[in-house]
């Protein structure tokens, strides 16, 4: 019964690297992130962080194991201030109150949100929402970040600024990042290694150049009326 949204997909993400996850619409990218972050339980298969299984358990377990994420349709805590949005993430990771506030202020500064700290997240300009969501994810102290279309809806300059920030994160924080995006320009600039999904299955894997030349990838994209140029 039901549709198989994901079938036999296997990928590995190391700390310090940025892996791009691409594929046509409906290929299962978001589903994969939902499974890894614990929001969906897979019927079979596992996600492990340093050997600890995080799938099939309550969703907050994945976060405690060091996985944090953002959402394609941004999900902020709208009735909390920008600062509280970040602070609460640190608190949820078990950081003490004073340290959580300090970490929040530091991250808000880093993401250019300092002067918005007392604004309710629901009242932030759109361009800043994604930055805040990312700051929140980082505040958990995660070792792995899953970013679902981090640049969607941003204009070119905002996108570029975000890109610059993102690119620096693995080095400064030692995280591994998994990025989903339709913007191939962004993906190619950000990621050395790519993983391609189509119809819930892995169709290609490798460096940007390898993937670009892979006939199966070309077919998948052209077949689905070229979601990415």
């Amino acid at each position, binding site marked *: 019964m*039901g549709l198989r949204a994901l079938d036999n997909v296997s990928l590995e993400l190391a700390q310090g690297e940025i892996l791009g996850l691409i594929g046509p619409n409906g290929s299962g990218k*978001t589903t994969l*992130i*939902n499974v890894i972050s614990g*929001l*969906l339980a897979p019927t079979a298969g596992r996600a492990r962080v340093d050997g600890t299984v995080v799938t099939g358990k309550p969703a907050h377990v994945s976060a405690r194991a060091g996985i944090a994420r953002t*959402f*394609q*349709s941004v999900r902020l805590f709208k009735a909390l201030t920008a600062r509280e949005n970040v602070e609460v993430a640190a608190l949820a990771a078990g950081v003490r109150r004073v340290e959580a506030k300090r970490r929040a202020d530091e991250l808000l500064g880093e993401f250019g949100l300092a002067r918005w700290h007392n604004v309710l997240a629901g009242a932030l300009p759109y361009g800043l929402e994604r930055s805040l969501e990312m700051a929140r994810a980082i505040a958990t102290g995660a070792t792995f970040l899953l970013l*679902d279309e981090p640049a969607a809806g941003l204009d070119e300059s905002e996108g570029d600024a975000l890109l610059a920030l993102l690119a620096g994160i693995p080095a400064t924080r030692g995280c591994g990042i998994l990025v989903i995006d339709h913007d191939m320009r962004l993906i190619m600039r950000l990621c050395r290694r790519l993983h391609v999904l189509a119809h819930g299955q892995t169709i290609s894997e490798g460096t940007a150049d390898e993937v670009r030349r892979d006939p199966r990838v070309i077919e998948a994209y052209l077949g689905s009326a070229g979601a990415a140029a």
Partner: protein
Amino acid sequence: MTPEFALQYLINALSLGSLYALMALGMAIVFGVLRLVNLAYGELIMVAGYTLFVLNDSPLPWLILAAGAVAMAMVASVLTERIAFRPVRVNSLNAMLITSFAVSTLLQNAALLLVSPRTRAVNVPGVLSQNLDVGGFNVSMANVLTIIVSLGLLFGLNLLLRRTTLGIALRAAADDFPMTRMLGVRADRVIATAFAISGVLAGVVGLFWVARIGSVIPTIGAGPLLIALIATVIGGMSGLSGAIVGGYLLGALTVGMQLLLPQGLLDYRDAFTFAIVILVLLVRPQGLIAGRSAARVG
């Protein structure tokens, strides 16, 4: 168990089940389109009851009075939607739910103010208190009529939902309302229709309920509301057939408990049934019967 006893048990269970099924269906049809647990649903039954009471001395035939009572319940249902629920619909589910709580309180106290806090007798046609002889067995006429009318109503409603455009839209909406809206069905009309049908069902339930008790009080809707809640939960709160099955199941269960439980425990019957409700919500939130898939997060 003697055959007569068994037949009576069966008819009792079927009659109560039919009534419960109508109650549940009236609740489920609104829940389907709005995700609203309408706590004012019981007061529609009250409206039908008081209409009968007001018309007590009317010279008109009882069937016409009954039609009037059902019509009033329908009007009340549609009016509450238009005046109270529609304005808060955009806000949140909780807002709508509390609104229904407020509407319930409002209607109850209106009856308190306009009629009386005390029980008022309602004339019931003699035929309902007669007994029927079925192959040598004594069967209550009220029970038989309840079963026949309910089945007729369910059948008619089924036709309406399957054959008319609005009916099809309504069934689709009960299944997946956002999707139905995207297909261009006008939300306001579907919702208003759902409330109208809900009101008619409540009205018919009101007739039989009042006939059973022989009187009406402002709090008469409380019992049916709880029953409708339980039955819809057992039925799965999505889709309409679940509610009907839930109603019949609850009817059988109620009569069965009456039969089997000692008085000491019978006092706690409602506590048991509601404990079962919580259990069903926990173990099978999609109900004992139907299934439903999860929504996309992303």
